[in-house]
């Protein structure tokens, strides 16, 4: 469980990136933090594993204040995957890359071996075990970075802009992966401004603007509210745009899923016919 209480954060240059954020993320939740670039999304999630400590207020992870422990200890619980895989890959083989964190956390050789195999299989990278990560494609490198964090099996998974530069298929795989993590009871936090991706996953959405949380609720409610979205520079997902225009005909507004949209349209047409 992650508890954030009235957190303010100021960078050394005086810029206040968080201005009194309070929220609770329960175990097993799937949360998407959305908002414009510079809204404070990444600054906020960096508090979840202690990379940043609040200037004011308190962040507690599983009851422990982040100021009273180390990044390494917090990272055991909260695995943070950065946006750009090239900012972390450095080993000669994929296998070594994945073992890096496991060694840092002091796992035993036997466990490390098992965990590597498990993580590689989970992300479909088994064939690249002995390959240099630098020879892989962008999408594969992103998966290696993910595997290297997943390997120590953290309770919470934080993904910073996981869909940037990814094509439709890769996004679909990522979505399935998140669903799988969810069924295993993991907490998943993504930072993103990819509305269509969020619309497909329908998580809890936290909308940020200028260092504050301006909306917090179900994806289908927030992503279909044009007034709230426009102030955070987010565009409505396409399905929501369509239903916003159809609202005068008596159709519901809070629809973001294509198949749900189909059912609603079919039913409404049926009704008219009668």
């Amino acid at each position: 469980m992650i508890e954030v209480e009235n957190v303010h954060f100021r960078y050394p240059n005086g810029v206040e990136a968080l201005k009194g954020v309070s929220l609770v993320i329960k175990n097993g939740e799937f949360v998407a933090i959305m908002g414009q670039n510079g809204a404070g999304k990444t600054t906020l999630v960096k508090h979840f594993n202690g990379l940043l400590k609040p200037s004011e207020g308190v962040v507690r992870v599983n009851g422990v204040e982040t100021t009273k422990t180390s990044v390494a200890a917090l990272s055991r619980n909260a695995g943070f995957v950065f946006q750009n895989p090239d900012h972390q890959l450095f080993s000669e083989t994929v296998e070594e890359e994945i073992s890096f964190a496991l060694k840092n956390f002091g796992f035993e050789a036997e466990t490390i071996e098992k965990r590597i195999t498990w993580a590689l299989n989970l992300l479909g990278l088994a064939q690249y075990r002995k390959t240099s990560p630098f020879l892989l494609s962008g999408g594969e490198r992103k998966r290696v970075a993910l595997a290297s964090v997943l390997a120590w099996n953290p309770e919470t998974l934080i993904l910073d802009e996981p869909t940037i530069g990814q094509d439709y298929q890769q996004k679909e795989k990522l979505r399935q992966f998140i669903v799988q993590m969810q069924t295993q009871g993991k907490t998943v936090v993504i930072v993103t401004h990819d509305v269509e991706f969020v619309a497909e996953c329908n998580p809890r959405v936290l909308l940020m603007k200028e260092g504050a949380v301006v909306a917090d609720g179900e994806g289908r409610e927030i992503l279909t509210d044009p007034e709230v979205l426009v102030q955070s520079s987010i565009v409505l997902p396409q399905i929501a745009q369509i239903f916003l225009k159809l609202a005068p005909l008596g159709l519901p507004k809070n629809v973001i899923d294509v198949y749900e949209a189909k059912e609603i349209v079919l039913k409404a047409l049926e009704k008219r016919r009668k």
Partner: protein
Amino acid sequence: MSVFDGLKFRRVYSPIHNLDPRIKFVYVCAVFVVAIIFSEILPLIALFLMPIPFVLLAGVQKEWLRSLRGAAFLAGFIFIVNIASNFFTSGYVLTAGAVETSAAMTLRFVVLVESFSVFFLTTSPDHLGLALEQTRVPYEFAFAFTTAVRFVPVLAEEAQTIMDAQKARGLELEKGGFLKRIRNYVPVLIPLIVSAIRRSLELAEAMESRAWGATKKRTNLYALKLHRGDFALLAITIGVLVVAIYVRLYVPVPAISQFL
């Protein structure tokens, strides 16, 4: 928005900032020469005071004082070494004259530091790059200079991100003995180097795509023109040089210790 904001330059406008960097550079060189030809303390005090009006006009007092403070340690060191060598070579006596000469030597160093710092504090990198371009320095050098200024803060920010990414994977940079600590930086340095290479390739690609090397006779959007202020500074520079040389040749400079 990061710890490294200090590296990013800000464009400032003041009568001193607007001066032509070439003339400013000539002025700094002149002060240099004068500081070298005098070893007496009085002219050096005069030289020491000379940049103050410039600093005030440019409004960079804070930064200027900081750079002086940075030089203080070295200045103290120079003073002590001078005094000590004088003390040992002159039969273990400390004279007022020796203290004065040592102070002069120290002051000479301070003058060099302060005038250089005024130059860099009041010359924006793009101005300097432009000056390089227009003083027949090969364009490649000028370009390399401005690109470095442009990308140093970007790389610094990237280094911070990489450190964060590795810390999130359990890397503890401060752990272990001296050698272990150096080794701790390998996971930070490799991604930094790889990404710098990748970045430079992308830059090269973008440059090629914008007609880099199309003609030897490159033109420039900006022109450096000499304004009234520049001529005034040039006049001051020449004045200082003439006076200094005249004094050196024909006027004996008294030492303070003589009056004691």
